[in-house]
């Protein structure tokens, strides 16, 4: 029974950290995403044809929200865990009567909290600025949840392996951001010439963007089941990897 209380307090600690640092953790990503929506959507929207039946400014919103959320989930867990290791107060948690899975889950909840807060804020603003529909709410929730588990877990893993702050931002800049850019956030991959269209299908973020776009707009470049399936097939091993690091103590404990 005791471990559950520990899990609750760890989750509370992780959300408290996000709230105490809210200008960095929430406000900054919301502002930068809104700028993207305004600049790309509203200014270019008039000049770019519709993507399928959807207007361009509406088309890019789901992808931009996805990008902001997965980056936040990743960055949150990478930095909170790296900091906890660096300051060594992680030892207070490692020496507590919590199961390793409870530690993994407690940290995951922090990343989810931050990403959902950002997602909701962006969604509210997007609805106010641009009439963005939510056609398939269940698919949307499933896609967002899987995507966040994937990226928060990835953040946990990187936070555990990182030897410096630069490592954590390195992965964000060199892996996540480029994959998001070529993952169909700004365009439908139907518009891409061969072989770029085919190559896009190897991008894991492409499927997440598709699943979330399907949730919002009710249409996507690939089947929703394929998109959710690929995302789940990545999220589950990523979570288990993070969990394994906590239970084996590799890298966390000398």
């Amino acid at each position: 029974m005791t471990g559950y209380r520990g899990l609750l307090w760890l989750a509370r600690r992780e959300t408290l950290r996000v709230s105490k640092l809210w200008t960095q953790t929430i406000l900054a990503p919301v502002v930068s995403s809104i700028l993207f929506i305004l600049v790309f959507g509203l200014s270019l929207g008039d000049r770019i044809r519709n993507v399928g039946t959807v207007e361009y400014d509406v088309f890019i919103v789901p992808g931009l929200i996805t990008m902001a959320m997965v980056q936040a989930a990743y960055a949150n867990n990478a930095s909170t865990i790296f900091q906890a290791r660096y300051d060594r107060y992680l030892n207070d948690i490692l020496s507590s009567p919590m199961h390793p899975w409870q530690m993994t889950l407690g940290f995951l909840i922090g990343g989810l909290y931050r990403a959902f807060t950002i997602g909701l804020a962006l969604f509210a603003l997007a609805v106010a600025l641009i009439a963005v529909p939510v056609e398939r709410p269940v698919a949307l929730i499933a896609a967002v949840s899987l995507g966040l588990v994937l990226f928060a877990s990835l953040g946990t893993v990187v936070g555990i392996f990182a030897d410096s702050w630069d490592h954590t931002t390195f992965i964000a800049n060199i892996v996540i951001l480029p994959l998001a850019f070529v993952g169909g956030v700004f365009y439908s991959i139907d518009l891409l010439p061969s072989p770029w269209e085919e190559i896009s299908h190897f991008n894991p973020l492409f499927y997440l963007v598709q699943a979330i776009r399907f949730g919002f707009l009710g249409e996507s470049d690939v089947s929703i089941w394929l998109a959710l399936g690929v995302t789940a097939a990545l999220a589950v091993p990523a979570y288990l990897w993070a969990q394994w690091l906590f239970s084996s103590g590799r890298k966390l404990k000398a």
Partner: protein
Amino acid sequence: MAVGLRRRSPRGAPSSLIEVFRGDPPALELRGLTKRYDDGTLGVERFDLSVPDGAFFGLLGPNGAGKTTLISAVCNLIRITAGEVLVFGEPTSSLRTRRWIGLAEQDINLDRFLTVRETLLYHGGYFGMERADAEGRADEMIDLFELGAKAGVVAPKLSGGQRRRLLLARALMHRPRLIILDEPTAGVDFELRQELWSTIRRLHADGTTILLTTHYLEEAEVLCEEIALIRGGRLIARDSADGLRRHFGADTLQGVYVKAMAG
């Protein structure tokens, strides 16, 4: 009371008279504990030690002797290479043993995002305390360690001594039965040291087992009922201060230390 000096006690046999009289499982028992770090360094090697329930026990040894390694092995902070650790008779794989241990590490490791009061509350939570209980206990600890004026201040804004106090308050927060203090008085002013001594003594008088490392021999002499001397990851000797003096034929603990560490 003369306790025979033993380099290694036979498995299962009580390793001190105190334990014979009390008959309880020892607060801490190490059996063949070995820790080899990934780079090949041996932290401790085939280490056997039994700390009786209720003891005030000192670990003495030069820098790099393996004191912190030993403590980390007990508190799930390193991966053990070989051997067993039992806390009040239970293997440390059982999670509830962790509730029985309170640790103040050698290096101060406080959560930079939490205030003094939050540090204590959250620690209580991690260790399974109920909220109301944790709140009451946090206030008690804040009073005991005179942190009242700083209760709402985050750890990075505390002075060195205040951080040390908070670290100790956190170790005591969940009412552990075994308190492990790794050099609690390093870099601490005279006044705080006196206070610490009296606080630790009071806890010991209430039946808490204390495991203390220190480089101040007079501190070990004054406080500890039993002392283990460690060098190069191995147990050299273990006895009361008087017993050690007799065994090494020295007049002072300093003399014992010099002889023991010279090998």
